[in-house]
């Protein structure tokens, strides 16, 4: 959600319980401008909030001048004023973080104990070797935000285009989804860098627009039914909620450029999802 107008556009998500207090809004209005300037970001987006036991983390993402999809950095703040860059983790470390469970504490320096189990030896001689690794909450935060963003960050079809040079940019002529398309899951795309058109059958492929359909749509996300699509205000506002990451909500006003999303939750994946549908 773009930082300009953030305090207004976040109200579109209020019906799902996503809300900022006046104090937070006022602080964000000031600090995100400073952040954008200090870090020389092209744009700053408000991403959401991870609710911890003691404190919460507010998350923003800064977009550089390059590809909107790739040139992104995540930052966190606990008072909506001071922002810290989240570390970029090595895959192995991220894997480690993702296997941590339970709630966030709200202290970036808190250390979790991760018990690393390695199998040493081969065949019948194999032995489990366990050693305990300490993982900072800041790292876990970075891993979880990356995971959420990859798994559920969505945009409406047509909001971004791939230029001839392969650069992904905002589509200036995007006029919003129409009344019919906005109620279909296939009109919403994952905003992530893993174009995978293999899943789509040949017939469907024929109707794709290469410059627009370079992202995966969410219709085939598993398990089936992991997105809840509500037309609110009788269809004047479309809300999509992820059931996989409870707390992720997306809005779009059909027929307009207005869309955005935010995650307000505990940072825990809903692994019980298959049982709950």
């Amino acid at each position, binding site marked *: 959600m773009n930082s300009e107008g953030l305090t207004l556009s976040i*109200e579109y998500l*209020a*019906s*799902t*319980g996503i*809300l*900022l*207090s*006046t*104090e*937070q809004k006022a602080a964000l209005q000031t600090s995100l401008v400073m952040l954008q300037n200090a870090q020389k970001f092209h744009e700053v987006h408000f991403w959401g*909030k991870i*609710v911890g*036991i*003691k404190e919460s983390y507010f998350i923003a993402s800064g977009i550089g001048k390059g590809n909107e999809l790739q040139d992104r950095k995540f930052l966190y703040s606990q*008072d909506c004023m001071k922002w810290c860059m989240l570390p970029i983790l090595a895959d192995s470390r991220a894997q480690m973080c993702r296997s941590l*469970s*339970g*709630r966030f504490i709200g202290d970036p320096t808190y250390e979790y104990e991760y018990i690393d189990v390695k199998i040493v030896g081969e065949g019948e001689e194999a032995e489990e070797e366990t050693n305990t690794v300490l993982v900072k909450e800041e790292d876990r935060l970075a891993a979880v935000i990356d995971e959420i963003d990859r798994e559920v960050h969505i945009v409406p079809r047509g909001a971004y285009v791939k230029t001839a040079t392969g650069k992904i940019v905002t589509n200036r002529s995007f006029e919003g989804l*129409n*009344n019919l398309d906005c109620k279909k899951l296939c009109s919403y795309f994952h905003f992530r860098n893993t174009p995978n058109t293999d899943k789509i059958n040949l017939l469907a492929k024929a109707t794709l627009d290469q410059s627009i359909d370079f992202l995966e749509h969410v219709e085939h996300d598993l398990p089936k*039914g992991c997105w*809840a699509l*509500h*037309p609110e*205000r*009788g*269809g*004047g506002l479309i809300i999509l*909620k992820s*059931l996989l990451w*409870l707390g992720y909500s997306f809005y779009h006003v*059909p*027929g307009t450029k207005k869309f955005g999303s935010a995650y307000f939750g*505990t940072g825990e994946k809903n*692994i*019980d999802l298959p*049982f*709950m*549908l």
Partner: protein
Amino acid sequence: GDPSSDVRPASQEVELANVQNKLFEKPSEEAEPEPEDEVEMPLPDLMDTAHYFEQAGLGLGREETFRIFLALKKLVDTHTLQSVRFWGKILGTEKNYIVAEVEYREGDEEGQEGEEEEGEESREEEADEAKEGEDDNLPTPDYKPPPVIPKEETGTGCNKKTYFVCNEPGGEWTKLPPVTPAQIVCARQIKKFFTGNLEAAVISYPPFPGTEINYLRAQIARISAGTHISPVDYYKFEEDDEDDSDGEGRDSFVENVEFEPPRVQELIDPSLSNWVHHVQHILPQGRCVWVNPTVKTETEDFEDEEEEEEREEPDEPVPEHGPPLLNPISEDSEVDSMPAWSAGLTSNLVPQYAAAVLRSNLWPGACVFGLDKKFENLYIGWGHKYTAENYSPPAPAATQEEYPSGAEVTEVPDPTVDEERALQAVQQEQLDREAEEAEMEEDDEDDD
């Protein structure tokens, strides 16, 4: 082409607007004179409480809150209510539920009784079927369904309050039926998303006794019992209950007129001893007040009674106990080694006017604010309890024994030829001996 063809408002949007339009109808001037008796005003100042929750970054948008406010007003206007409260919002996969918690004025329970029997009837049918089976000469199953725990009367225990729900403010309010202990017990074992359709089936294991309307009601009861808290001393037990020395039996309280609001700093004290539960704990049985399931209530047939009592005497159940009403939340058990509640202020910058806010870690989405004499509970969430581990459905019950185990029905290995011969030999021997004895007896007889 024509730009207006696909332009909003869609007919659906207009439909909703037409529905919500009714909310904005001005109170007719004739109905006005009532405000004179302002003492009895069941409608709460929802906008005021929403203002506090908003400071904590909780709640819904202001326009939605205002519509809910108007919808509550409509509820008050059409029912004779003692009190009404915005309980919260339960998110669903297709629609959401707005939940209102009401208490009727005494003697005004409007067809409350009509819906009650349903749950039990279906159970009795099952029992009837079982009885029909007896007519055939099939083996009689020894399975006796566990005794039905009677549900609590409207106005007591889990059914102390009545709940109304609607999907959109302005839509029709639907009254939820009272909850039965069986529903609560089963709701504890399952974890399902709400769809937003009250009639939807709850497909689960163990099978849920009822549809989504009952599941919703059961979760509301559980959430209320777990998360409705108030500052200590805000409520007190009624004077005439005082003699009942152990608090457990007491189930009613009144507002304490001498309530001295604790300071905000006290309200967020990590010990959390300044907040108490004002909704009764639900026992494992699914009721707030334990009943001995073996003692039949009067409504049941007397004929069966003697018979059953006899049979069950040996396993007289142990009464269940839970924390008493107005128990401090500091005694709430930990959640995954985390405190059950997280406390904080609504403002870091101007603590002078900040309110205390507590969020439940056991029921994510439940929260409460407190400032001076004001406090309010609110739930906005998916209606599920927090679990640290994966949900795993309970294992299927052990296969039922069809016949009482005994020699007649126990299969034994076929005897070998040797064994048969041995048996025959033994039998022959015996026969011979018997024959001899018979002869001897005959002889004796002859002697007599």
